[in-house]
């Protein structure tokens, strides 16, 4: 592989023409450079601030603080909740979107009347900006007085639920799952459609029932698409912020605070840069831990 570039360069030099070989290699450097800056500079600064006492409201009290920030963060009752909520949100949304997504992908692989239009409608939530979808659910769907769900609940003789007050994290999970379901369906559907119909036919001839078909043919075939879906969703789900910001603001208490929102609180509400830096370090660590597993399975499935 490494020879392609050099041989191309040599060939153009040999023919006395301006060589695109080296220029072709250097063309990659600007992107690498800015991405390196984008990932290294913030990390370095975060590490530095971890050990500093630094509050934007009292900048004169700036100085080395040893492990003070770590102690402060560990004593914050919100921290454990935030980590737990981050993991729960991620896990729940992944299970819901991949599970429902697989079912819907199989459904939309069947021929039916108006399938194209139905699919277009199904995709709508993915293109709705997060602040809109959050407020749409908060004010029009889940609102306990005049929301659509409250109306449905009353029609069936139940008492409407105060979703964001009583079940804040579940409400956030509903919103985020709704946003990401279309993406899972679209990805998995693309994969389902690439499945060879003859293989299914052959297995059916051999007497395979629907469950066996799913277990031994469809699911293994979807492996690559599932791993890609899980990876992309994880990237975005670890950073869920706007949905919490406009609905519960992390509350009540810390019931719906995830790491993103906790750090936001430290920076822009308490102006505590040191505390925020330690929390950021934790968020980065968590993300990299997950990335290690996900990237490995994704890279295995990749044919570059």
């Amino acid at each position, binding site marked *: 592989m490494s020879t392609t570039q050099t041989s191309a360069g040599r060939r153009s030099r040999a023919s006395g023409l301006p060589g695109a070989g080296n220029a072709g290699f250097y063309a*990659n450097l600007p*992107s690498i450079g800015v991405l390196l800056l984008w990932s290294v500079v913030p990390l370095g600064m975060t590490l530095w601030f971890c050990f500093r006492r630094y509050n934007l409201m009292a900048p004169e009290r700036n100085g080395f603080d040893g492990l003070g920030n770590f102690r402060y963060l560990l004593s914050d009752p919100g921290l454990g909740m935030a980590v737990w909520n981050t993991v729960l949100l991620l896990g729940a949304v992944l299970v819901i979107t991949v599970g429902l997504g697989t079912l819907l992908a199989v459904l939309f692989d069947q021929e039916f009347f108006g399938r194209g239009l139905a699919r*277009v409608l199904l995709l709508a939530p993915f293109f709705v900006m997060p602040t809109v979808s959050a407020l749409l659910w908060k004010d029009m769907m889940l609102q306990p007085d005049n929301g659509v769900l409250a109306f449905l609940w009353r029609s069936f003789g139940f008492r409407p639920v105060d979703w964001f007050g009583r079940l804040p994290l579940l409400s956030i999970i509903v919103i985020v799952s709704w946003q990401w379901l279309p993406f899972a369906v679209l990805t998995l559907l693309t994969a389902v459609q690439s499945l060879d119909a003859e293989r299914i036919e052959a297995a059916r001839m051999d007497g395979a029932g629907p469950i066996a078909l799913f277990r031994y043919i469809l699911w293994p075939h979807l492996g690559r698409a599932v791993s890609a879906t899980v990876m992309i969703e994880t990237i975005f789900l670890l950073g869920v912020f706007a949905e919490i910001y406009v609905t519960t603001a992390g509350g009540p208490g810390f019931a719906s605070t995830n790491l993103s929102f906790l750090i936001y609180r430290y*920076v822009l509400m308490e102006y505590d840069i040191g505390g925020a830096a330690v929390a950021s370090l934790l968020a980065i660590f968590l993300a990299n831990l997950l990335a290690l597993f996900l990237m490995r399975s994704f890279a295995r499935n990749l044919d*570059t």
Partner: protein
Amino acid sequence: MISHATWRKMWMTALGWAASLVVAFPVFWMVLTSFKTETEAISRVPHLLFAPTLGNYRAIGAQARYLRFAWNSVVVAMGSTLLALLFAVPSAYSMAFHPTRRTRGTLLWMLSTKMMPPVGALVPVYLIFRDTGLLDTRTGLVVVDALANLPIVVWMLYTFFKDVPREVLEAGRMDGASALREIVDLLMPLSLPGIASTSLLAVILAWNEAFWSLTLTAAKAAPLTAFIASFSSPEGLFYAKLSAASTMAIAPILILGWASQKQLVRGLTFGAVK
């Protein structure tokens, strides 16, 4: 006599449409609410039949600040996309046509920079922006969005460029084309559909980006995502107006997104699913 196949198709039709109507219902409801009066919008019994009004749209459109937010969204989405392309096109060209032993590793590393949650960079970026006067400027948001989307843009372009036959570019090189000429005269025209759908995805991502918009901008440079968030305050509970503003905010992306759904899968899964 209805055949087994026809029955099956009717069942699938019912199931498929039920699923998509349930999923799309909230959006449909929001659009409907945007044509109601505020009183109808907060009725405990939902109004399905009502005299539609354009009053909410007029009220929102009449606000000078709405136009500013909308313009900010346009500038940031376009600007960050162009900036990301400026870096990504040479990069993807390099990796697609001049691969080295490290290309695969480089691609995966670029992807891994996306794994860091944006909030991990909030503290440093916020401080740098404060000290350089980039807080609450469109330039600042353009730069951050471009950087955030760069890995995805590089990946997507890379998978499209891989489809361009090498021979064409090599022929150009024989004729003495420089790398720049190769990219501009040969590669870009040949992969125009790919570049177009990559740009579209970048525009969609930047348009809908909320984290940096909410943390780095305020009254001056805030795009529509932040404007809509301002309706979450208790004094802003005007559901019909919120619906109208939201409908206007999502309409362009809804249309662009629907038009590009196929390429979107490919782009967002980094070419793993085509």
